[in-house]
């Protein structure tokens, strides 16, 4: 299949002065160049120590508050995860495992 050509903005459409807008809806999903393995979270083993959260260089460990207002690990954001494996390495309880990615 022929790849669709990326649309390039004109001088009129571009923000002036080399400004790149921050827009959460922009699809700058850097997770699409993740290495071959990706981390899988096993919530049964997780004790919510948050070491993975503090170690992640890409802020891809998503943390939420539970009913008692305690921070717990919710999931891993694969839109930004690069598959570096630091979270799996740091996890003391083996709750994160690196698995081969299915293409």
């Amino acid at each position: 299949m022929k790849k669709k050509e990326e649309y390039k903005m004109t001088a009129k459409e571009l923000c002036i002065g080399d400004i790149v807008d921050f827009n959460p809806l922009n699809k700058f999903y850097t997770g699409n160049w993740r290495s071959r393995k990706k981390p899988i979270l096993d919530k049964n083993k997780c004790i919510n120590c948050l070491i993975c959260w503090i170690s992640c260089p890409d802020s891809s460990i998503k943390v939420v508050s539970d009913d008692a207002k305690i921070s717990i690990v919710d999931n891993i954001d694969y839109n930004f995860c690069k598959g570096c494996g630091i979270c799996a390495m740091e996890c003391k309880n083996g709750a994160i495992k690196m698995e081969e990615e299915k293409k």
Partner: protein
Amino acid sequence: MIKTVYPTGKIVAKTGNEAIAEAMRQIEPDVVAAYPITPATEIMQIFSQFIADGIIGSEYIAVESEHSAMSATIAASAAGARAMTGTSSQGLAFMWEMLYIASGLRLPIVMAEVNRAISAPINIHGDHSDSMGTRDSGWIQLYSENSQEAYDNMIQAIRISEKAKLPVMVTTDGFVISHCMEVVEIYPDKDVKAFIGDYNPDRYLLDIKHPYTLGAIDLQDYYFEHRYQLSKAIEDSKNIILNVSKDFFNSFKRKYDFYEKYMLDDAEIAIVVIGSTAGTVKLVVKELRNKGIKAGLLKIRVYRPFPSKQIAKELASIKAIAIMDKSDSCSGAFAPIYSDIVASLYSNGIVKPKVLNCVYGLGGRDITIKQIINIYEILIKIASGIKYPTNIINYINVRK
């Protein structure tokens, strides 16, 4: 304590530097970063004294070089502050790479630039070599004939830069304007503050609720578009400059345009000049007019953006023109103003005037009334059909 502050406005004797410092006091920018250099040192010396005395609340950053001065000014401006600086000669040269960043990032910075020769040989006196070197840097350049114009240009520059989102350089001739005392009308603080208004940028980096990236890498795909934007912005700033001049006239009753015409409309011969020399040329024109010679003068105030079409129109019916440059482009051909004007004439289909290029006053060498009369005499000869080489630069008053 400085006692030369005139909050209610007054007609006073001031040097160019003092007048500019006074304008900066009235503008009261948020941030000023500067490094001292002759002949611009005094501007910052006086301005920083205003801060030290608690007269104004600006933030003054004493930096370690002009490169840092421009960098700090750029950063302050990007953060959302009204930022200004001032320099001269080598200082401007040292700012070089940052000048392009200020214009490329479209930051409304205003700089007081005191024209001085560029080393080597080292020389502290006035010529236009420094600012002419930055003519393609995307800065708006306003040249001043005297202290009053410098003061007025500084006030207008704030409005122009903030509307056009472009940096503006206000230049004065080193020593001739910067250190000579003249009568200057200082306007009341409240009128100046009302004229420039508050600075409310559309977007700024410290606005944490609306984050954005500034100065990202911009390769083959987009760099050209951004440079085109800059080019277009400079062109569009022409209208902004005229509108600000109009407003300025309404507020302070002083008329400004891209250029000033002095007895030019019916002139047969004319000189085009920038800066303080225009005052001397005016005197000569008046003398020649008394003798019945139709001499005229075009003094350029706005050199960037270059009012190409307008100048071509003004000069179209003149038989012989001398374009006086106080800088040399070392191109082996012609100096900057000459190149711009001749290109403007030719591109507008005007090929009849004979145009002579005169380079004068390098390193602050005085240009005398007699030398200007000599130039007009050459123009009279050219206008009457006598052959005179116009394809070379005439160096005025140099021992060849």
